[in-house]
């Protein structure tokens, strides 16, 4: 045993204390338990980071979890370069969100419950990233899903959050179905679920095929794609992205922590962790890259026209996760993790900033009804602006470096890579556009809320308390500086993070030239600036343009406004038919007609008999008598037969 077990254990203890004593004793003091716990995890994570940076990799088992025949799996930790990056991201963002929540959730009747769930989430996420085997990853994976469910549906008295939580869980289960089978296949073919052992022996499966419905398919490809299905669910990629926008029904700190910075990136983490497996299958890699690229574009286009501030940021998250998958798919796992790490800061900041705006606007989410908030809430404005600059990819900020690394790696990766690069660059422009659409509509121009008549909303506009703005400022520093650990050589940096992660994630060979690199960077910068400029023109300079465009391209606008009708499609193609079959076929026909009909020839007669008996009211005694008679008959018959 060593100190690192405390990293997940401290939040678990905090959870246990708050969930048991929170209701009766602790109440609105729950954060006094939760915050020190996560702070402790953060400090230990920094220590772990220092130790790994010093060249040590920690890998040990704590206890045997499940042992059944030759199936053995432990609870244990693998703390390497990839893990410590995740540890820093998870514990630091979690700590800041904890602090922010003290202000944001103040006065909520479920205050203790909220902090319990946050602690449970932190524990689960840490178990997920620290595990040294696939089943522990799965454990953490499902537990974070549970926390997501509980926190999305935190305000369960309303229907929408309750629906959204359930949807998140079930959609994720679809992904987990694939993931679970992938886990089982790995065990079946390699006899182990331990990372080190899997990666050591996965090469043996090269060239092996498995027969699926008459086709011989490459075994490693099948395994990789099954795992990827899990990632698609958890990280909200097409076609399982539908739960994440709805997840915004949860309290905003939850959106920042779980549905932006940490849990949804678990899919990317898993792919990166399994890079030795994915690298062996070109098909799987290209699937990852293309799903990522298409999702990035798809979600960005939806974000262009939405008006709900949190949903725009949610679609933005889906899009940015697409970037990360794109990176992994072209073999640049390091770039994917780098973007995961910078994204955690600027996206958490965007959500917490949005939360601060909602706080001031009494829960209003529609950016069309905001405007001019800049002067009322300067800290929120400036930090939000920094986050937007960062996500837009403006040079010098965190998002720029990580996105540039991805685009560059995509460009570098052959002809399909070039395709993903083009998509990625286009998404850069869209990202800049929709991000600044929020900035301009929310903070600039005139206030468009319910101010004129009763002076209500505008009167209440105020900056959030310090306990909320302080995390914004810290995250803003991250949104600027987090990227500096990965400044490419081209711009005079050392790309420290790339080299740091290389032992775990490798680095693709660079074939493109120096000039091409400058070209990729320049185009990305131009795209980003163009996006910001267009947003400025559309929403500040000539506000009539968006309306005219929407009129002119009415069909396209309607499709985007309705998010390509994916929810409707699922409802029509899956949900309704299943429920219909359940009640109109299984209950009404199979169970009640066929089975009951065949098996119940006798009971039908009994029913009549029973009803007659009920009428006569001599009732039960005769039934018992009959029952006993039959039982006795059986035993006596046996004795008689035995005697012969």
């Amino acid at each position, binding site marked *: 045993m060593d100190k690192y077990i405390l990293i997940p254990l401290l939040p678990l203890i905090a959870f246990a204390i708050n*969930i048991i004593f929170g209701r009766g004793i602790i109440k609105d003091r729950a954060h006094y338990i939760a915050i020190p716990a996560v702070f402790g995890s953060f400090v230990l994570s920094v220590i772990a980071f220092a130790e790994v940076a010093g060249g040590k990799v920690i890998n040990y088992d704590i*206890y*045997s*979890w*499940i*042992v*059944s*025949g*030759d*199936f053995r799996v432990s609870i244990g930790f693998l703390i390497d370069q990839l893990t410590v990056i995740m540890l820093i991201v998870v514990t630091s963002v979690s700590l800041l969100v904890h602090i922010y929540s003290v202000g944001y959730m103040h006065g909520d009747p479920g205050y203790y419950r909220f902090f319990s769930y946050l602690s449970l989430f932190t524990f689960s996420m840490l178990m997920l990233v620290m595990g040294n085997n696939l*089943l522990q990853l*799965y*454990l953490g994976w*499902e*537990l974070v899903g*549970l926390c997501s*469910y509980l926190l999305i549906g935190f305000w*369960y*008295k309303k*229907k929408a959050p*309750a629906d959204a939580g*359930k949807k998140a*869980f*079930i959609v994720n289960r679809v992904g*987990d*179905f694939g993931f*679970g*089978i992938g886990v*089982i*296949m790995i065990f*079946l073919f390699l006899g182990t679920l331990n990372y080190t052992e899997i990666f050591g022996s996965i090469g043996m499966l090269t060239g092996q095929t498995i027969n699926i419905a008459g086709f011989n398919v490459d075994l490693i490809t099948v395994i990789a794609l099954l795992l990827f299905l899990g990632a698609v669910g958890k990280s909200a990629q097409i076609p399982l992205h539908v739960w994440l926008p709805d997840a915004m029904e949860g309290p905003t700190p939850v959106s920042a922590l779980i549905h932006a910075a940490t849990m949804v990136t678990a899919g990317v983490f898993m792919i990166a962790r399994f890079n030795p497996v994915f690298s062996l299958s070109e098909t799987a890699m290209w699937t990852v890259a293309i799903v990522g690229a298409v999702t990035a574009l798809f979600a960005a286009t939806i974000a262009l026209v939405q008006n709900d501030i949190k949903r725009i940021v949610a679609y933005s998250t889906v899009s940015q996760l697409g970037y990360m998958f794109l990176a992994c798919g072209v073999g640049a796992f390091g770039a994917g993790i780098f973007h995961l790490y910078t994204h955690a800061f600027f996206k958490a900041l965007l959500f917490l900033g949005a939360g601060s705006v909602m706080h001031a606007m009494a829960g209003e989410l529609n950016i069309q009804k905001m405007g001019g908030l800049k002067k009322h809430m300067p800290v929120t404005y400036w930090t939000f602006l920094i986050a937007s600059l960062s996500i837009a990819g403006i040079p010098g900020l965190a998002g720029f470096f990580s996105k540039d690394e991805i685009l560059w790696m995509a460009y570098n990766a052959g002809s399909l890579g070039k395709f993903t690069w083009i998509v990625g660059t286009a998404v850069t422009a869209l990202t800049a556009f929709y991000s600044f659409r929020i900035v301009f509509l929310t903070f600039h121009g005139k206030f468009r809320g319910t101010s004129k008549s009763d002076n209500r909303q505008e009167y209440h506009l105020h900056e959030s308390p310090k306990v909320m703005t302080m995390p914004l400022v810290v995250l803003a520093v991250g949104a600027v500086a987090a990227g500096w650990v990965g400044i490419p050589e081209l711009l005079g940096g050392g790309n420290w993070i790339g080299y740091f992660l290389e032992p775990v994630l490798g680095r693709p060979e660079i074939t493109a030239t120096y000039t091409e690199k400058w070209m990729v960077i320049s185009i990305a910068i131009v795209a980003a600036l163009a996006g910001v400029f267009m947003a400025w023109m559309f929403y500040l300079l000539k506000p009539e343009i968006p309306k005219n465009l929407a009129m002119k391209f009415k069909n396209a606008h309607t499709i985007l406004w309705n998010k390509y009708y994916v929810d409707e499609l699922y409802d029509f193609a899956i949900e309704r038919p*299943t*429920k219909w079959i*359940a*009640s109109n076929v*299984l*209950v009404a026909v*199979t*169970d009640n007609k066929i*089975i009951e009909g065949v*098996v*119940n020839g*006798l*009971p039908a007669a*009994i029913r009549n008999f*029973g009803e007659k*008996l009920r009428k006569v009211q001599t009732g*039960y005694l005769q*039934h*018992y008598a009959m*029952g*006993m008679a*039959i*039982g006795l008959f*059986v*035993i006596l*018959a*046996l004795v008689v*037969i*035995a005697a012969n």
Partner: protein
Amino acid sequence: MEGLGYPILSTLIFLPIAGAIAILLIKRTAETFIKWTAFLISVITFILSLPLFIGFDKTTSEMQFTETHEWVPDWGIRYALGVDGISVLFVLLTTLLTVLCVTVSWNSIKEKIKEFYAALFLIEGAIIGVFSSLDLFLFYIFWEAMLIPMFLLIGVWGGPNRVYAAIKFFLYTLVGSLLMLVGIIVLYLNTGKTFDMLQMMAMNYPYAMQLMLFWAFFAAFAVKVPMFPVHTWLPDAHTEAPTAGSVILAGVLIKMGAYGFLRFSLPLFPEAAKDMAPVMMILSVIAIIYGGIICLAQTDLKRLIAYSSVSHMGFVTLGIFALNTQGIQGGILQMISHGVVTGALFLCIGMLYDKTHSRQIGDYGGVATVLPIYAAFFMVFTLAAIGLPGTSGFVGEFLVLIGGFTAWKLMGVLAATGIIIGAAYMLWLYQKVFFMDVNPKIEGHKDINIREIMTLLPLIVLVIWIGVYPNTFLSFMDVSVQNLIDRVNTAGMVEIETTQEVTEMPTEVIK
């Protein structure tokens, strides 16, 4: 392995039966005294069963705590008891759940109180008898004896449609049992006129007879499990039974069917079992999916949980007929977990029913607002039911999926869809009952009291224990399951095996 100075299994069987008689002798009006007597009997039985947990030797597949007495020597009938790694946990589960059945019925049973507890204890004794009999005749007596008090429990203390449900339950199981009885007689006549199960397990019956007997026993066991398509008695029985009846039904009674497969079908008819395994696996997968989807159309709380049992027991039979270590161990663990979790869910529903007297899902909504502690307990059991890792539901289900997938990939994949469907109906149920607007019908009700909390707490502990450290329980069955699998795998290959041994021996000597 005797270990103790007294016949522990006989005690566990006859203490409740004696208790039942004692309770019947108490004056009818002394209700509190009856309840406390019942509570004491159940607790003492539970405590006396603990040596099975502590003193069990996990290194052998031999029967333990055995007792053997001649009974009707002329007919080869003996009174023989014993438990191994497959059966011991079920005895413990039975004694534990009986205690909880007593406490949960405290205020909900208002009529014929002493008869109720007497019936409950008769069931307990008979079920322990089923799990520990080593003589087929004795087994059959307990198997049938259990029927009568269970029939009464449903038929007397049940819901409005209790008579129909009770008769349906009785006839379904009886028809199945009769076929088994024929099978038992055939076995008896072909095993040198003895009912000794251990002796039977050492026999190699001709293949045609194995096949016939497999299906004869199948009739009895499949109905009990219940497997698709003979499951339709279960929703009715569960729905109409009083809470304690549902808990016993779901918790241990339906486990008798799966136990039967493990104790008889596999070791006695190994070749038939191997050949019929694909059919069994298909029926299991149908049960998993069918039982799950049909839950989505339920409007009655207990009916929904009953159908979910069909689905969960599908996992159990899938694991058993995967005929490999993970499958069978997973199946047994899934049975224990299902007993705990579904037992707990029925306890929970019973507690709610005591307050509102409605089982209709539509009569609820917002329960989490009115009864927050209750809602938290129900949540944990819901999560265990949908197999969340860290709870008991996960380990068994996952091992079964490994086993099932290993045996037949397609069935493994299809069974895995059960985890999606399970989440869908349980979370749907939870939302309808606990979330959203408070239904006026439940407004003003008090949260569960300390008696009810103490009833649920042991089960929460088990849910987490099995989920976090399942090896405590897996280690019980390890050797016995391995022995069973060896028996199935080597059946019909006796000659080949001996020749192998002959050829292998010298090489070992040379080494």
